[in-house]
């Protein structure tokens, strides 16, 4: 491996880059269960974590995996789990706990074809709505999509930072293409990436209210064992953390949990514009499909078609401000997805000022640039 400055130029798979990103972000516990196409994350974590005084554990299933991840985070250790569709389904229950108890953690879902066992070794994007709404009840959540090896590193760091800053579980949606594509990439040195940590209480233990509101809507979080004894529950609770059935307290909790994400919307909303200047027709895409879209847009521009791309990195909270601008600017928008139409519904919900064309592929193959190019009028 050749060194370039403080970073190293390396050839990594998307899954491996997620591990590097997690370690750089300060993740020190991984709990997981084997599943294709996410297992490389487990395997590499089992090798890397013990060397940095971290802990790897293979649990008995995905329910237990996310349980251990939540437990570790409650004890103050940043933690990660990684899975694919079937395992992600099993995680939904405890994912809701992490939302309710506001436990920062990161869950990677390397999407494969579904439903059910589906297509274990082929890519898909069918879990987008599950990532947003998979666990029951109203809950805040952040969902990010990666499209390359560099993304897999950077977005993973960012996912941990957002989780810590907002005390929410953050879901990273990768897919089989991104997960298994190897690309060269300059791996930053340990001190080159910004790392955000949760706010800890600055008051003495007897004054500590684990779910007290503040201007940001994100309460300070004490680690178990630090002397701030408190109660953590999946029940609706008051600001002391104890179960409540009082309407005013229920309302305060649920609305604060939504408010903290709304407050941070512009920081959380991440998109990338490509050739959008003067674009009359645009592609809105995410994950590996965004790469095909980028090429399709280049091809279209060469043919004199005023095409552009808005790549969504944040999927939820849905980046409606950026999407709104594109819908106002263009005559038509194409939303290609490796599913039967999921993000396209969110796009349509923003406004209907322009024609919105869905393009769907569910045969376990990545949508090609030519397919999108044709939709662009090429």
């Amino acid at each position, binding site marked *: 491996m050749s060194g370039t400055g403080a970073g190293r130029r390396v050839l990594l798979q998307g899954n491996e880059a997620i591990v590097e990103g997690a370690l750089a972000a300060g993740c020190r516990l991984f709990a997981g269960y084997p599943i294709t196409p996410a297992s490389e994350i487990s395997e590499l974590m089992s090798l890397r974590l013990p060397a940095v005084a971290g802990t790897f554990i293979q649990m008995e299933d995905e*329910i237990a995996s996310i349980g251990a991840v939540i437990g570790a985070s409650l004890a103050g250790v940043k*933690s990660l789990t990684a899975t694919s569709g079937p395992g992600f389904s099993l995680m939904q229950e405890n994912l809701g706990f992490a939302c309710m108890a506001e436990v920062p953690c990161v869950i990677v879902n390397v999407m494969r074809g579904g439903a059910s066992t589906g297509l274990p070794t082929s890519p898909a994007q069918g879990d987008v709505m599950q990532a947003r709404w998979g666990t029951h009840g109203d809950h805040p959540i952040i969902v990010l999509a990666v499209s390359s090896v560099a993304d897999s590193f950077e977005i993973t760091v960012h996912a941990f930072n957002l989780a810590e800053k907002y005390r929410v579980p953050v879901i990273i949606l990768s897919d089989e293409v991104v997960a298994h594509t190897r690309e060269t990439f300059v791996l930053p040195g340990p001190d080159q990436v910004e790392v955000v940590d949760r706010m800890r209480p600055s008051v003495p233990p007897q004054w500590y209210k684990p779910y007290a509101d503040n201007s940001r809507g994100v309460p300070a979080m004490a680690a*178990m064992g630090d002397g701030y004894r408190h109660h953590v529950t999946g029940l609706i609770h008051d600001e002391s953390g104890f179960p409540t059935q009082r309407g005013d307290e229920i309302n305060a909790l649920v609305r604060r949990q939504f408010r903290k994400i709304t407050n941070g919307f512009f920081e959380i909303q991440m998109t990338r514009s490509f050739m959008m200047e003067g674009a009359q027709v645009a592609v809105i895409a995410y994950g590996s499909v965004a790469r095909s879209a980028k090429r399709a847009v280049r091809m279209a521009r060469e043919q004199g078609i005023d095409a552009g791309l808005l790549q969504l990195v944040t999927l939820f909270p849905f980046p409606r401000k950026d999407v709104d601008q594109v819908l106002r600017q263009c005559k038509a928008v194409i939303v290609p997805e490796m599913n039967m139409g999921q993000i396209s519904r969110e796009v349509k919900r923003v406004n209907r000022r322009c024609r919105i064309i869905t393009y769907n592929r569910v045969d376990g193959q990545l949508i090609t640039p030519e397919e999108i190019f044709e939709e662009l009028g090429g």
Partner: protein
Amino acid sequence: MERIEQLRHTYLRHDKKFPHVWCPGCGNGIVLGSLIRAIDRLGLTQDEIVLASGIGCAGRMSVYADFNTLHATHGRALTFATGIKLARPELTLIAVMGDGDATGIGGNHFIHAARRNLNMTAIIINNQIYGMTGGQYSPTTPYGAHAATAVFGNLEHAFSIAELAVTAGASFVARGTVYHVPELDRLLEKGIAKNGFSVIEILSNCHTQFGRRNQMGDPVTMMRWLKEHAVPAVKAGDLAPESIEGKFTIGVLVDREKPDYLKEYERVRAEARQKAAEAKP
């Protein structure tokens, strides 16, 4: 009496948590009392104890006790506890569960936790019924017993929780009842002190949901049943098989030394550090 006042004052949470949700005469309170006395006798501080619980009547215990407490999802208390223990090995982990919680929905986690042998204590309050949801039959409801979903008698056969834990590999396994309280205190003390995965199954009374449907509608009748059906484990071997038919053993069933998971993991860390150092250019 003064001592009890003091324990109550030290270990129970005072504001907004009482009255508790349990029925008058419920065995859960006896278990909580026993647990507090055991912890007090072991001299552990409240800050170093994590009390995790699942869902159901037993699961509500965590809210009343003044430790680091966690009220997890149904059946998953041990998975959360595993994460906490791995992150902060110096903490003392105690998980309180019910029979349906630990051996129904959480059965898989229970046997694997026993196999893995992390140093923590699982307390399973076995009242042979799903109480909080209204008396449906559980994995420990006896064959033929009546429940809200076994109106014509239970067709399924009960798990024997302590024996299951022995087979699954727990380091320490004991069974007690809410009638034999001084012994329960000692069993909990031993279990918490044990380095390894400990299981204490506690037979308890749910006269409201189980008793009422099975001709034992009050706590005293159920306590009498526990008294009459418990056989000390140390004596069981000497008794004629027909005399212990339909009864259960109480006391320590297993107390054995197995490698502690976290101690083993230290070895993994040392090897991994060495391997990483060698790989550096």
